[in-house]
C-alpha cells in the first residue's frame, strides 16, 4: 500500500472527526454537559499534550529529563505575568542553557 493511500485514509477519518459533532449539533441544542465542558477542553487537552511531549522515555538520565521540565517551569512562571511569546522567549533559553549544562558532550 503506498504512503499516499495511508495518508488519505488517515486524513479522511480525521476530517470526519473534525466535522462530527459540528454536524450532529447543527440543528439541535447541545446537551448541558457539553456546554459546561466546552471551556475546559483547552486547558485539559493542551496540558495533556504538553506533558507527553515534555516527558522523556524511562531510561533517560536526569540530564535528559530535566531540561524540558526546567524550561516548562520557567515558561509557566513567565506566562503568569505576560504573553505566550514572551513566556516562550524565556523558556527557550532556559531549555538551551540547561541542555548544554546537563547533557554530556
Amino acid at each position, binding site marked *: 500500500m503506498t504512503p499516499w493511500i495511508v495518508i488519505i485514509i488517515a486524513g479522511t477519518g480525521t476530517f470526519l472527526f473534525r466535522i462530527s459533532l459540528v454536524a450532529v449539533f447543527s440543528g439541535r441544542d447541545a446537551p448541558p454537559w457539553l456546554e459546561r465542558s466546552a471551556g475546559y477542553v483547552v486547558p485539559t487537552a493542551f496540558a495533556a*499534550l504538553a506533558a*507527553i511531549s515534555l516527558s522523556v522515555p524511562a531510561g533517560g538520565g536526569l540530564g535528559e529529563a530535566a531540561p524540558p521540565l526546567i524550561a516548562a517551569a520557567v*515558561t509557566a512562571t513567565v506566562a503568569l505575568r505576560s504573553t505566550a511569546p514572551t513566556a516562550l522567549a524565556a523558556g527557550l533559553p532556559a531549555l538551551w542553557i540547561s541542555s548544554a549544562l546537563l547533557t554530556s558532550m
Partner: protein
Amino acid sequence: MATITPASIVASPSETTRGPETARSLLSGARAMLPWLVGVVPFGLVIGVTVSESHVPAAAGWATGAIIYAGSAQLATVDLLDHGAAPIMIIITALVINARLIAYSGSIALHWRDTSYGFRAVASYLLVDPSFAVGMEGYRDTGSRRTRHAHYLGAAITLWIAWQLAILVGVTVGSGLPTWMHLEHVVPLFLVAQVVHSANNRPACYAAAVGALVALVGQSLPMHSGIIVAIAAGLVAAALTERAATSERSRP
C-alpha cells in the same frame, strides 16, 4: 470619503459596512494567530526535516500537512511509514491521536449552529489546536456573529498557509536546521503558556493538572490513546470541582 448615493441612503448602515467589517475581522483573526505561529512554525519545520530524513517520499510527507493537517498525527504517520508499520496500524494510530478533534468539534459546534454548510465544512477542515484556541477565545468576545466567524476564518487560514510553508521549508532545507535548538520542544512550551493563560478558575486548574497526570501515566497505553483518556479525565475532574463548589455554596 464615501460619496452619497441613493443606494447608500436607502440601505441600512449594517449593509453598507458589512464588507469592511468582515475584512477587519478576518485581519483581527490573522493577527490573533500570529503569536501561535511562533510555536507552530518550528513544529512544521521539524516535521519537514523528519520527512526529508525518512524513506517517505517528500511529496507525500509534505502532503500530510494538507491532507491530515494535525502535527502530532503527521509526525507519527511519517515515523511509522518510515519504519514500515502495517498500514492499518498507522491509520488507527493517527486517528487515535486525532480523537481529541472530536472534543474540539463538540465545543466549537455551539458557536457554528447558525452557519451555512459551506462554512461548517471549511471551518471544520481547518479545526486544529491553535485555530480551536483562537476561535474559542474569539467567540467569547461580543460582536456580531458574522464578524466572529470571520475572525475564526482569518486565524485558521493564516495558520493553514503558515503550516504548509513551514513543512515545505523543512523538507527542502532538511537536516540543515540546528539540533541544539531543540525545536521539537517549542510547541509543548507554547502549550504550557496557553494552559497557564486558559486555566482561569479552579475547575480549569484541576482539569489541566488531571489531564497532564493521566496523560503521563497513560503513555504506556497502546497507540497513543492516553491523550483522549486524559482529556476525558480532565473534563470529569472539572465537572466534579464545579459540583463541589456549588454544593459548598448551597450549604447554610
